């Protein structure tokens, strides 16, 4: 019998996880929305960043959360170099070609990671947030609470950026209507590079949050890529709030699915929700072109 407190516990965990998923998917939503690029290597970049977190926090013995200071700018640059070498040549090409190139990038990242780090999962031994509170039957893990808070703050800042700064408005208007935005004098080439860099930098932040409680192995990216795409499909181009709500739905589906079925079937629940959304709300729950 599943007790109510267990349901409450899983609901809380699901919301926290969902907020984190929204942050992971936000970079992808930006890249897809602004550039119309189908990036299948999104999760693999998170995997790469997570290994960087593991390396730096183990070697310099700093907290995984601190590594974000180093990794966010580094991944902005990595994003730029990926953009100029692989993404720019396939801008505006058929979806299939974009998928081919980014799947290729993902395969290369996965298998370089496999060659260097082997298949065993790696985790950071200790982080500042490795403790928990107990409130009655409910346990709140500080690390999960922390990543939920950081995710929501980052999404809020990003929302301000998209609505209050020139660059942010340029991104938003390009996502809205590419041709008109370019007629209004927006330099699409530079904007695309910045968007890809920003999307990749967000991934580095997600990775340092993930490593406060998660593990990294070479195939970590595959599930994150799919989950991010599911969130983008549901949230569509409904902006930051669409991604936020969709992330929470996915987090809840995963967490409650693992409670009511079994943990090994939790992704089936997420993807069945995804099927239903695509079938019955093809434009996403929160509006999509």
């Amino acid at each position, binding site marked *: 019998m599943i007790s109510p407190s267990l349901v409450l516990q899983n609901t809380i965990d699901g919301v926290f996880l969902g907020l984190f998923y929204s942050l992971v998917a936000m970079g992808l939503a930006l890249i897809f929305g602004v550039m119309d690029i*189908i990036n299948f290597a999104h999760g693999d970049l998170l995997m790469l960043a997570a290994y960087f977190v593991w390396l730096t926090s183990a070697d310099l013995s700093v907290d995984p959360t601190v590594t974000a200071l180093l990794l966010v700018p580094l991944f902005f640059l990595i994003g730029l170099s990926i953009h100029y070498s*692989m993404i720019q*040549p*396939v801008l505006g*090409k*058929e*979806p*299939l*070609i*974009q*998928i*081919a*190139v980014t*799947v*290729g*990038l*993902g*395969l*290369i990242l*996965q*298998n*370089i990671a*496999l*060659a260097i780090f082997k*298949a065993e999962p790696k985790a950071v031994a200790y982080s500042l947030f490795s403790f928990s509170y107990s409130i009655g039957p409910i346990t709140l893990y500080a690390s999960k609470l922390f990543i939920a808070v950081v995710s929501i703050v980052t999404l809020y800042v990003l929302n301000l950026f998209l609505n209050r700064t020139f660059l942010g408005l340029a991104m938003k208007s390009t996502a809205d209507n590419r041709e008109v935005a370019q007629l209004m004098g927006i330099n699409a080439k530079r904007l695309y590079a910045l968007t890809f860099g920003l999307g990749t930098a967000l991934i580095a932040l997600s990775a340092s949050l993930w490593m406060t409680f998660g593990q990294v192995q*070479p195939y970590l990216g*595959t599930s994150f890529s*799919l989950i991010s*795409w*599911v969130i983008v*499909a549901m949230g569509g181009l409904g902006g930051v709030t669409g991604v936020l709500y969709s992330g929470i739905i996915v987090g809840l589906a995963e967490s409650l699915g693992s409670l009511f*079925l*079994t943990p*090994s*079937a*939790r*992704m*089936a629940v997420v*993807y*069945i929700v*995804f*099927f239903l959304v*695509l*079938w*019955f709300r*093809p434009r996403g729950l929160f509006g999509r072109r």
Partner: protein
Amino acid sequence: MRASITRGPILEILILIVILAIIPLALMGNAYYELLAATVVLFSSMVVAWNIIGGYAGQLDLGAYAYMGVGGIVTAELWMKAGIPPLLGIFVGGAVSALIAILIGIPTFRFGIKEVWYALLTAALVVIFNNISRLLMGPFDYYLPPTTGFVYLKFNSYVIVYAIAASFLIIAFLVNFFVERSKMGYYFKAIREDELAAEMVGIDTRRYKLYALLLYSFLLGVMGYIYIVIAASYSYRIFDSSASLSIAIMGIIGGLGSVEGGIISSMVLRSLGEYFRSTFGSSLPGLDLLLYGAVLILIGIFQPEGISSLINKLLKRKG
């Protein structure tokens, strides 16, 4: 966009049969190589089946192992639980697989899900089947009975397993051949090039996409049992996302709509991959996939039409 390497289709089929017949002679009775050859040829036939939905109809299906796994498991279970011999069972497996594909395809095409969303949906399908079959079958490996014989499509010699895989490749090739030259094939290509325009000229795009899905899933469902025979056992792990992805990868590298390109890319890359795996497998696992990744990026950026058009260009330059 479509390019054929040689002109005469009958000549092509004869060349394919001759090559497939020479391969086992070249392996000189080495059972391990025969098994590998059967694996590569079966993989190739999956790529050729994929060409119907991915190459002709232009739907980026990433769910190959979902349909293949369903067909294979149904065939094996029918034999073990109900005593229906696999020679008959493979067709039931194919039919069940096609039925499931159609049940999913109807709402999917009805709601106009295409491009990246279709790709994601089919990729998610493999994970759903993986999780559900794990719930139903548990984490165990199921072994086929040791019985051999033609009606069980199980043999002591790997050459015969190879021959069955090779005949699947020829059948898949022939299905492609007939589809391409039929009205349906032209409709598929119209849908691939511009779905809206195809609809404008009166093609029932939904119906024809379903036909493509039907042919593809039935062929894969029939092949599933041979996949299990080669692997000797089956479990929920037959629903493999990255393997499904690699089927589409070979189709893209070969060139959309080019059966010859798909056969060449899958045979060359998979054989190279198997070689890497056996030579560097312990020190550098994943070298085969690294190779696929690099080829994909190069093809995507420099040769989006795939290797078939590259080979054509080279042939033309010489001629």
